[in-house]
């Protein structure tokens, strides 16, 4: 399934230095830990091993959603990426817009300087224009009516229900009239029957793949173990719930896709959504 050789090579070149970057610059807390360094140190290498939920798992959906948004409006000026996911959201967004002949003004927001540094490094290497901003979704605001598009990937399930509602309200305020919110969320309503890997099995799988790829498994295995032990998802119980929650925030679901992917510890169902702020 992997057809992202250029990205694989880029991840190979950055993953080890990224571990040191994360230990030095990550802020926190995150998922019960004082720092998010366990997350940002491990994520790029797990991405290299294709063992972590990544925007690239939803590439064709993001390409479609961005192309459709551009073709409907005729232009897109301001695009906000909420949650960097290392550099991958910026890369995917910029590339998807370029496919249909436009660039837009892409701003990447994240609470962690490590993630923003990765996005800026990628932008410098690729020549893409990009702005980044340190941003805590629980404390900061985006200017009202300032964005044509807001994208997040698997962000909502990082928060409990109250937090999810607050994030959705913030997104709705930031969008211009008829602006769109594009996202993916894990669908906890669809149980797929497959047994989940334990964290230790996950870490062993990571070590095995690392060996196959000639990577330092002794460094990678504990990173994978800590990721699997700490990563926690607040459930969204299916299409009905997410449609209602978006509606409460003033965002109408105009496209909702259900997809099944290999997942991290188990086969996982996702919802891929395009929602639109009602017109003025």
């Amino acid at each position: 399934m992997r057809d992202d050789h250029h990205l694989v090579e880029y991840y190979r070149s950055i993953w080890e230095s990224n571990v040191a970057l994360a230990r030095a610059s990550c802020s926190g807390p995150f998922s019960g830990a004082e720092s998010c360094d366990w997350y940002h140190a491990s994520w790029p290498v797990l991405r290299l091993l294709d063992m972590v939920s990544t925007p690239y798992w939803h590439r064709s959906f993001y390409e479609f959603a961005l192309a459709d948004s551009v073709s409907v409006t005729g232009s897109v000026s301001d695009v906000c990426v909420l949650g960097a996911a290392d550099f991958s959201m910026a890369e995917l967004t910029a590339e998807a817009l370029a496919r249909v002949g436009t660039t837009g003004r892409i701003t990447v927001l994240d609470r962690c300087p490590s993630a923003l540094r990765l996005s800026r490094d990628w932008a410098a290497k690729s020549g893409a224009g990009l702005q980044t901003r340190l941003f805590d979704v629980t404390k900061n605001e985006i200017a009202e009516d300032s964005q044509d598009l807001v994208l997040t990937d698997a962000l909502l399930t990082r928060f409990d229900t109250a937090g999810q509602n607050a994030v959705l309200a913030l997104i709705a305020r930031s969008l211009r009239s008829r602006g769109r919110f594009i996202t993916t969320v894990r669908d906890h309503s669809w149980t797929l029957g497959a047994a989940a890997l334990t964290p230790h099995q996950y870490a062993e799988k990571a070590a095995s793949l690392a060996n196959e790829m000639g990577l330092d498994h002794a460094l990678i295995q504990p990173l994978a173990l800590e990721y699997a032990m700490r990563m926690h998802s607040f459930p969204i119980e299916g299409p009905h719930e997410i449609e209602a929650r978006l509606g409460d925030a003033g965002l109408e679901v105009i496209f909702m896709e259900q997809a099944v992917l290999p997942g991290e510890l188990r086969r996982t169902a996702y919802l891929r959504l395009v929602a639109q702020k009602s017109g003025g």
Partner: protein
Amino acid sequence: MGVDAVLEHFFECSEHLDAALTALAARKVPLKFAYAGSAARTHSLLAKSAGYQHVNWPIAAETAAARELALGRKLRLLEFGPGTGHHTAHLLAELVGQLDTQRYIGIDFARGLFMGAARLIRQAAPGVLVTFACCDLEAEPALLPDPPQDSFTMFLVLGGLLANVESPERTAQNIRASLETGDVGLISVPGYKDGTSAEDYVAPYRSISFRNAALEPLRAMGLKVEDDQFSVQWDDAARAVVASIAVNIDGERQEIQCFTSRRFIPDRFEAVLAAAGLGVSQLSVSGDGTLIWSVFAQ
């Protein structure tokens, strides 16, 4: 950062472009690419044309069959190949108050048309939850969520989907594999009628909107397409309307097939259904010759 000129012709995603280029090398671009990307726009225009509706929409007969299958049941509705949704919305509008549709899932190769389809379906059946599953039914079955325990699944394969794919046999098998045993549904395909002239089969396709829709994927691949090189013909041996275009590729003139729409004889199509594991409970024939099968997953 400025806004550049938006491309007029594009594919829905890079996967589609790669697949279309592979198909082009075999001189046959499957029709499914004419529903996606910039082709979704041209197809939407086509769907509003009278010729398109004439070919694809035997609403009265389909309504009667659907009513018989699903009356009184809480319904989960699956549709394979909903396209623009106009056909389904008409069907659901005829059945409003008679079908208790709780949930609708559209299954299609391309996402592009489904936004519009979802809106039409919600208007026709208010309160229904509408979701999408992306699947190339010509290649594999769809993976669908388990139905709610108290609901009944009915599926639709309308608008000639099975007439337009490269292999109706394989697609029918993949549809069956997407279902649970006992699911019931309607499958409609255009029928072959003895005595119909070739021109009668071809006439609905002689429109600018059809030509633009069929050629859009080739434009999206960057090919220089000349309208007068486009032809639509009846292939009596294949019992199909076939459209093709002559284009220059790397200095060589090549004939590219870009559309196929078959016409079916009941016995032969029933054999296709049986081979796929779909039993037939009823066949009705609409006034325009469309074959409407009430089927069940065996």
